């Protein structure tokens, strides 16, 4: 695959008050690559991927997404958000709207699609995430796994070039995790560029091109999954892997 970086972070730092949440983070993601990010709680994983669609603003360094520099320019932010889908740990579906309206809102308002086109697309993606029959329900009437798949479909309806996932399975009951991961694996197979914060190491092994370990706001290690799991270079990575792989 032609190595065209679609995401580039160079020396990105971010502070919450006095607390430095990101310490000069570098990250390069090429078109079609899948990057899995792991690390202990509070290490800055969410902060990092939320900087990629400017849900958080970074203070130092340069972030380029799809050729556009993420600075304060609101036009850049809007353009980048239209190309970058995001799936949250807590799903964040709109509870007052039906599943169908959840899926059509973005395409209609942010992409200017007609209702008919947006609905057609919504039904297409609902079928893809294997819940074609739930279009008229409200999110609260679905199981957690179904809600997360709706959330994935909602992002896909925007036809994004990049998908960000922030612990998409952490809020799910164990028996629902695989139904969500299956959808993500399928998406990866179709060549979507993905940045996934997760502790599902099976998923990382199967799908990732690069696994990144973060600790205390730093990228400690970045390696292909084979090398990452077999021979982690840093002690911190090893300790972390021992902890999460032991159960």
């Amino acid at each position, binding site marked *: 695959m032609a190595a065209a970086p679609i995401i580039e972070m160079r020396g990105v730092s971010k502070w919450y008050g006095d607390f430095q949440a990101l310490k000069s983070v570098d990250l390069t993601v090429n078109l079609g690559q899948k990057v899995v990010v792991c690390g202990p709680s509070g290490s800055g994983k969410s902060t990092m991927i939320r900087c990629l669609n400017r849900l958080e603003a970074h203070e130092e360094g340069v972030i380029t997404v799809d050729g556009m520099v993420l600075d304060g320019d609101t036009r850049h932010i809007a353009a980048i*958000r239209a190309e970058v889908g995001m799936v949250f740990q807590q799903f964040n579906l709109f509870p007052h709207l039906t599943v169908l309206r959840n899926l059509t809102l973005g395409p209609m308002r942010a992409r200017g699609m007609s209702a008919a086109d947006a609905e057609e697309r919504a039904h297409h993606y609902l079928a893809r995430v294997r819940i074609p029959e739930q279009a008229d329900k409200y999110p609260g009437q679905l199981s957690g796994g179904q809600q997360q798949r709706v959330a994935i479909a909602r992002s896909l309806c925007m036809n994004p070039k990049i998908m960000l996932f922030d612990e998409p399975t952490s809020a799910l009951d164990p028996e629902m995790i695989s139904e969500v991961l299956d959808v993500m694996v399928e998406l990866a197979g179709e060549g979507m560029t993905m940045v996934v914060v997760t502790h599902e190491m099976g998923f990382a092994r199967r799908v990732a091109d690069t696994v990144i370990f973060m600790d205390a706001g730093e990228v400690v290690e970045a390696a292909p999954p084979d090398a990452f799991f077999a021979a982690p270079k840093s002690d911190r990575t090893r300790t972390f892997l021992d902890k999460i792989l032991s159960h």
Partner: protein
Amino acid sequence: MTRSRNHFLIVGLALVLAGCSGNWGWYVISPETASGRTNLRFLLLGFELTILLSLLAMVAASLAGLVIALLGLYGNRTGRVVNRVYVEFFRAIPVLVMILWVHYGLPVVVGISLPPFWSGVIALALAESPFIAEVFRAGIQSVDRGQGEAADSLGLTWRDKMRYVIVPQAIRRVLPALGNQFVYMLKMSALVSIIGAQELTRRANELVVAEYRPLEIYTFLILEYLVLVMIASAGVRWLENRMGGADGRPVLARRQGWFARRAAARQKGEP
């Protein structure tokens, strides 16, 4: 509408009926005499202005309150200052003073004098808007942060985010509080009688002056407001059912109370 309120009404009616003897003189509004009918009609016609006054003022106060709340929550420094000053200032003015100022003071400044009805609408809306602004502020703040983030990540503009995601959820949450404010509004509208708008209280006052039966006429006036407030409560409940609860789901399943029991009974074929 709750059972206890029905009881309240029954007790009220019983009191009134008990008053049909002794010192009470219900003839003044008795539907059985020609003059009683005229008086009764005169009083009942006040519903129109009381309802219109309260509804218009409530709508205006809600729109103003929403704008003020959004200014306070999302505005720049100036917006936040405007919000604080507006809320603190208008909250401090007694409603009666506001009505007098708008009706007698404002025309001196702007050069047009308004009919009492419109002065009343403006004054009530101004008096109520800071409270509604605070209700909306709390409602918007209670919407989960993730909702706004999801809307942002879809690339919605700020306006669309507010319009389709945040405000609809906030309104559902504050509907009971808004209903409460509307009940206050109905009662506050009585103060507009002072500038001569022919709403319920004004008409009662005028009839008392003409007939000198304050006990009967003011008792009747109380019943008129009681009916209005009961209808308003039922209306708010109906809206809540229609719009869904805080989570946005329709709350038909959660329906309780008199209407629901009646509806259920009717479905089962009971009278």
